[in-house]
């Protein structure tokens, strides 16, 4: 039987989510036994336009060339997975969407008209249909491999929806919000990281994006009770996943107070 074909595509990013593969250690050598990696520039294989069963996409859409390329990738992929905050919500670099990026550019470049750069950094799903979104800045290897495993078994991968608080409780971590009055974003952030920040005794900063049913007003009021100004609360939401609609609107609301 022919092995399923996969491709890993990079858009504007830090390359950190591709490391979910490159940091697999010896498992990396097992992967080609299960799938045929046809395109993965950082690892070596280069065949961007070959039809594949699964395309994994890292990074956000920032240029006119990106716009055209993501359409091609979608057309060639049976199943498209966005990996990480940049691909899934624009990432930290989507902060440019709230500023006048064109003004920055024309101040920087002698001839900005030659520059292929859009005004915005946007999520893959803003441009094409995404079959599965994996959140995280960065995604971890477990998330990516379990999604691929599910697909290899012909099962629809399950999307994480719970807030981090649930994961934190299951792991028996001490609540930083209650015990330290830390500005923990856990109540509004998707689980899946392994409750890393609370394990280190610090507040979650929402690098896994919004959970289902974000109660931002209540959490923001709690932060204000700790002495934060509305602008400080806004910055908690306008951080790694600022492009996610739930966090964008929450941050906007506090910013305009």
């Amino acid at each position, binding site marked *: 039987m022919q092995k399923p074909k996969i491709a890993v595509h990079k858009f504007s990013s830090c390359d*950190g989510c591709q490391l979910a593969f490159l940091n697999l250690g010896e498992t990396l050598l097992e992967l080609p036994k299960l799938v045929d990696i046809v395109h993965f520039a950082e690892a070596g294989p280069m065949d961007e336009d070959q039809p594949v069963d699964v395309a994994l996409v890292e990074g956000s859409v920032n240029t006119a060339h990106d716009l055209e390329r993501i359409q091609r990738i979608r057309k060639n992929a049976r199943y498209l997975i966005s990996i990480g905050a940049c691909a899934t919500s624009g990432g930290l670099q989507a902060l440019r969407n709230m500023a006048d990026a064109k003004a920055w550019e024309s101040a920087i*470049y002698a001839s900005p008209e030659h520059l292929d750069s859009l005004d915005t950094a946007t999520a893959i799903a803003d441009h094409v249909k995404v079959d599965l979104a994996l959140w995280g800045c960065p995604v971890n290897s477990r998330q990516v491999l379990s999604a691929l495993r599910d697909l290899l078994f012909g099962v629809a991968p399950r999307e994480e929806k719970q807030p981090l608080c649930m994961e934190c409780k299951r792991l028996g971590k001490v609540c930083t919000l209650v015990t330290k009055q830390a500005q923990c974003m856990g109540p509004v952030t998707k689980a899946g990281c392994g409750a890393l920040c609370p394990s*280190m005794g610090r507040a979650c900063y929402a690098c896994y994006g919004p959970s289902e049913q974000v109660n931002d007003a209540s959490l923001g009021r709690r932060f204000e009770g700790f002495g934060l100004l509305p602008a400080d609360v806004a910055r908690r939401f306008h951080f790694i996943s600022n492009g996610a609609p739930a966090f964008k609107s929450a941050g906007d609301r506090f910013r305009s107070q």
Partner: protein
Amino acid sequence: MSEQRDIRIEVPVLARVEGEGALELDIEQGSITNLKLRIFEPPRFFEKFVETHTCDDVIDMVARICGICPVAYQMSAAQAFERLFEVDPGPWVRDMRRVMYCGEWLQSHALHIHLLAAPDFLGFGNAIEMAEKYPDEVRRGLMLQTLGNDLIALFGARSVHPVGLRVGGFYHAPSIEEVAQMRERLQAALPEAEALVAWAASLQVPDDHQQFVSAGLRHPDEYGIYSGNMVSDSGLDIDVSRWDEHIREIHMPHSTALHAELDGKPYLVGPLARLNINLDKLPPETAALLAETGVVFPSDNMFHSLLARAVEVHMVVLQASQLLQNYALPDRPWADWQPKAGVAFGASEAPRGTLWHRYDVDDQGHVTSARIVPPTSQNQSRIEQDIALSLQNFGLDKPEEAIRLHAETVIRNYDPCISCATHFLSLKVRRD
């Protein structure tokens, strides 16, 4: 006489580099008429994003510039703020940060040697193909890479964008048991790191001598990793706050990254440059190992970069193990600090070279402007110079495919990180 041809080589996307870059090369009548390393990752404006954020937020934000060397970004930033606020985190924090940094060098160097560079020298398209012929070498490399990642995670909970560092120290100290287990693994890896050095020295690399300036951090007591003065083998020796007096960045139209020059000339940062200027700071065990290879340093052969990386791998495994030997829990893993308005300067050695930060901070501890100079933009002029010289040595009459592969090999040899190089274009805004 060889035939005079016109060749145009375009490598639209360079494989096995971090980020997206391309190469344009025109050879007419036997000489190079156009050579451009094009970096076209769109600008990412990180320096603008950090404005208005707190110093602790900035530590988490700048990590996102690079997934391969986030620790370097966090370390340069943390030290910049601590220096401005005149906070001394103490010897425990200093030692443990060096250990964490050793983890980043270990994973990044092992990744580069085995997954990105070595396939060039052994004639493979990628490491997975290479693993069929050299399974033990590739497995050893992946083991060392994993060890480096786990060493970062010991202090930062994960290796990509770790969450352990704060201004003044760490959020959390690892337990005695965790450290003891890690130390056992480091001890067990030492013979593997020794074997790696011997293997790296045995790889057949071109004998390609060039004149260049080596630069990087040098510290009076230790090999330049975590801190030091910016030093070059042409006489530079300055505190990092005096960076701008000697290093200038220029914008080339073909690239979205800036090129840096040291006193008006291209220069080299990274493992080879670092080893050249830090030779006397190698631990005796590592120095002895290097002597056994018979390769003489300082070296002016850029292709000795891979060996320099392997030597640094041995050094960081050894040093991390030594620094963790008498590990004790601190009362608290961070020192308190008060914000202060002023200009913060910090630099450390990312795996691929010096990473310099400068921040303006207000009296509330919020950043008002930032400037970051990553290693790849410093190396960009040197890379272009190297490709031209190296191709002349290689022979412009060679088949087109061989020329293309040689040029790519030269570029990959620098371990360029294009994601880093393109984050920082906002700096001219501030100057205008």
